[in-house]
């Protein structure tokens, strides 16, 4: 171990002690941000169980929109690879979906293992057509609020009356062999997403349709999946009663702080370095990447998963778990190391008491 590393370890011990001091006084700690890898989320849930904390993730639309829709109504979805390779009609639902397609270019290749797919058709609801899509045979843009347009299209597909009939769009939907709706959960509430899913389901009565959504930020899908298999439910979750309770409203980080219920924040920011505004209103322990300018009562620099240490993350290309080898191994501790260290110090404190 180098002298530098020794110094870092001593610094970490001191920071851990200060964090434990704050945690020991807290009645309702809040672990939020949660931008971290699988090991980091596992450790956060363990610490939450240990301290009775509430846990929330920064990807609010993913939780309160997309996952709420899944729990209320179910869904029809596909993988990004199937959407890219098999989809012959891409329905871009709203500005967020358009922007994501433009920025990440998931449909930029015309190639597909399914040589029968042919060219793609684009149908853009409430947005312009993204320019990054290859092999586009035809493209249609319909201006308006995407929710209104979805409602009108659903009425037409179901043979129900509607004030507006989008004849060419309806024909495109009917002709598709494998249509894919793309939504950004930030553009809709859970009912809007449910509406899109209801249309997808209706279309499957006569042909094949499915959907993908813009990935949640900061490993959001992964964090919720880890919570689901560890606690039984997705985020947001609270451990105040000694067992996990899932509740989007009760354990919303913003609400817990605004209503004065949470009295300590542990910001897990390995993938979200900027502290939220609400951090200014309560004691805060910030786990942030090296060099991040965080203002908090205790600041602990942690490695960035997949860069400074090996990590399992939902990757941005597939939105599925991937093992990512460190590209620039460094000595900063991982989120899991820091949080497990705090839990161990708490246990040691209890034994000494």
């Amino acid at each position, binding site marked *: 171990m180098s002298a530098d590393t020794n110094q870092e370890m001593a610094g970490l011990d001191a920071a851990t002690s200060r964090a434990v001091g704050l945690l020991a006084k807290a009645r309702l700690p809040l672990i939020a941000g949660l931008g971290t890898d699988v090991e980091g989320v596992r450790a956060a849930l363990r610490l939450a169980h240990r301290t009775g904390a509430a846990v929330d993730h920064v990807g609010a639309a993913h939780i309160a929109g997309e996952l709420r829709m899944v729990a209320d109504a179910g869904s029809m979805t*596909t993988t990004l690879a199937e959407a890219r390779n098999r989809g012959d009609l891409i329905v871009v639902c709203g500005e967020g979906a358009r922007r994501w397609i433009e920025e990440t270019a998931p449909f930029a290749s015309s190639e597909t293992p399914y040589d029968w797919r042919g060219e793609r058709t684009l149908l853009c609801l409430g947005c312009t057509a993204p320019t990054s899509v290859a092999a586009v045979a035809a493209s249609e843009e319909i201006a308006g609020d995407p929710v209104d347009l979805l409602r009108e299209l659903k009425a037409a597909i179901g043979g129900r009356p509607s004030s507006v009939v989008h004849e060419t769009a309806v024909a495109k939907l009917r002709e598709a062999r494998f249509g894919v709706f793309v939504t950004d959960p930030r553009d809709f509430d859970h009912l809007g997403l449910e509406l899109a899913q209801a249309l997808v389901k209706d279309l499957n009565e006569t042909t094949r349709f499915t959907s993908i959504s813009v990935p949640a930020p900061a490993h959001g899908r992964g964090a919720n*999946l880890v919570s689901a298999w560890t606690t039984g439910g997705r985020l947001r979750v609270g451990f105040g009663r000694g067992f996990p309770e899932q509740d989007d409203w009760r354990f919303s980080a913003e609400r817990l702080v605004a209503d004065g219920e949470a009295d300590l924040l542990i910001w897990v920011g390995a993938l979200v370095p900027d502290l939220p505004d609400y951090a200014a209103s309560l004691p805060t322990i910030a786990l942030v990447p090296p060099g991040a300018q965080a203002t908090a009562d205790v600041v602990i620099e942690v490695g960035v998963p997949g860069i400074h240490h090996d990590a399992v993350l939902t990757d941005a290309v597939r939105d599925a778990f991937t093992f990512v080898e460190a590209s620039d191994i460094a000595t900063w501790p991982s989120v899991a190391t820091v949080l497990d260290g705090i839990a161990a110090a708490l246990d040691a404190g209890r034994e000494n008491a």
Partner: protein
Amino acid sequence: MLTLLKGGRVVDPVNGATAVRDLYIRDGVMIAGPAEGEMPDEVHDVTGKIVMAGAIDVHSHIAGGNVTLSRLLLPELHVSEDPAAEGMPFDTARWSTYETGRLYAEMGFTTVIEPALVPTNALQTHLELADIPIIDRGALTVVGNDDHFLSLLRDRQGRDALRDHVAYHLAASRGLGIKVINAGGPAAFHSGLRAFDLDDEVPHYGATSRQIVTALLDAAADIGIPHPLHLHANNLAVPGAPATIADTIAAAEGRPLHFAHIQFYAYGKDADGGMVSGAEEIIRSFADAPNITMDVGQVMYGPTVTISLDLVKQWSGRTFASPGKWILQDGDAEGGGIVPLAYKKKNWVNELQWAIGMELFLLSPDPWRMLLTTDHPNGGSFTTYPKIMHLLMDREERRAWVEAMPEEARNKTAIAAIEREYTFEELAIMTRAGPAKVLGLSDRGHLGPGAVADIAVYDDLPDRTAMFTSARLVLKGGRPVVRDGKALGWTFGTTHHLSPETDPAMTRRIGSYLEGRFGVSPTAFSVPDAPSSARRTSRSSHV
């Protein structure tokens, strides 16, 4: 470390008749006896108790993307309400991996196999398996519906190429065997088909279900996979499916083949095409085919959820969803269909399903080949196993259930006439030795020298449900992990998998295919080292 299990009534049919005898364990492994004059370091007095090897489940959906999607779909099915035990975080978190491991262990189960390990999402399954405490785990790699495999078949690339393709995915996903789901059906569903039979062709590939199954039987043999091809056959839940099963058995031509959750295929048709028990027809096909093994997939009453990669079946089943919501995911090959169901005692179809499962157990001539499952959670939770054992071992208990059946269901099954009761020895074969044999896990399922010391000790209670729900003592690798029906704390077992030989040329070929298809390197799909234990295929010398 020498451990003595003293005075129990040992039910271990592999190693002899049931008798009161002592068992010795050295460092987690069964031994014949101590050295002369050697005193045990630890003694468990189990006088008057029933002692068996730890039980093994060959087919239980306990981990992976679709299981967790079900958790997300149905929060109301599993609301937690009890504080965790000291030192056992999440043990009361309903339907968590932690609760799963605890509940299995408390029933005396020590090895459980997840039957749907999807190669493109293998890492999630392994992450979840690693979070299931106490028990050992394994998983079956799902093959046969992906574009690369079907293209090899279409292009007549030959038996070796298909073998190498399967070996690649088995190795990369760290599976313990291979499974195929409604062979070709999910691929056909992506292209718009809504039914798929044994001789139907997958659009664009020209391959039939029969050809896929046959190719995979060859691949399993050529790779030397100890577990037979694990088959989710065509026509699940379709009246008349016993004929499909007979045809598929014939197609196997004597090669080892395991049929999953056979109860869901044992539906015959009466003169009007209505559903009746097809159990006798299934058993006729099964009895004459010693190469065939099956697990039952017993239905038990209550709310549950069906989790399946059989998109064709789940699409048609969506109309029965209760509550009325469901998920259908078009995956990279199969995907997943998640449909909640409530099996009701007042529903004659559900009653008939229950009775058909019972018939299959009780008409089976061979407990080595007809194994206990509920296809958890599809037919019911694995926590109903003790009740199923009770029903099989006690005809009076069963009679009460049969008499409560509605007339409409009772006339369509022969269950009322069956007097058979399972013995302890048959039960030990069906839930221990049989599953171990069919999985190729020769070091478990029995208590002979060399076996791992996974042991379940039960009170000999007339109430078999109570007896098998709460093991008096469970040893995992010789260490006590459950006492008086309660898990003692978190320990972690291993995830068993095979390490078959792979062909470097096929590895390069699949690597370039994956890059083209997904836009990421094949390492994106890899499963890093985790608590795991590589096991041998019959053809590979290395582990």
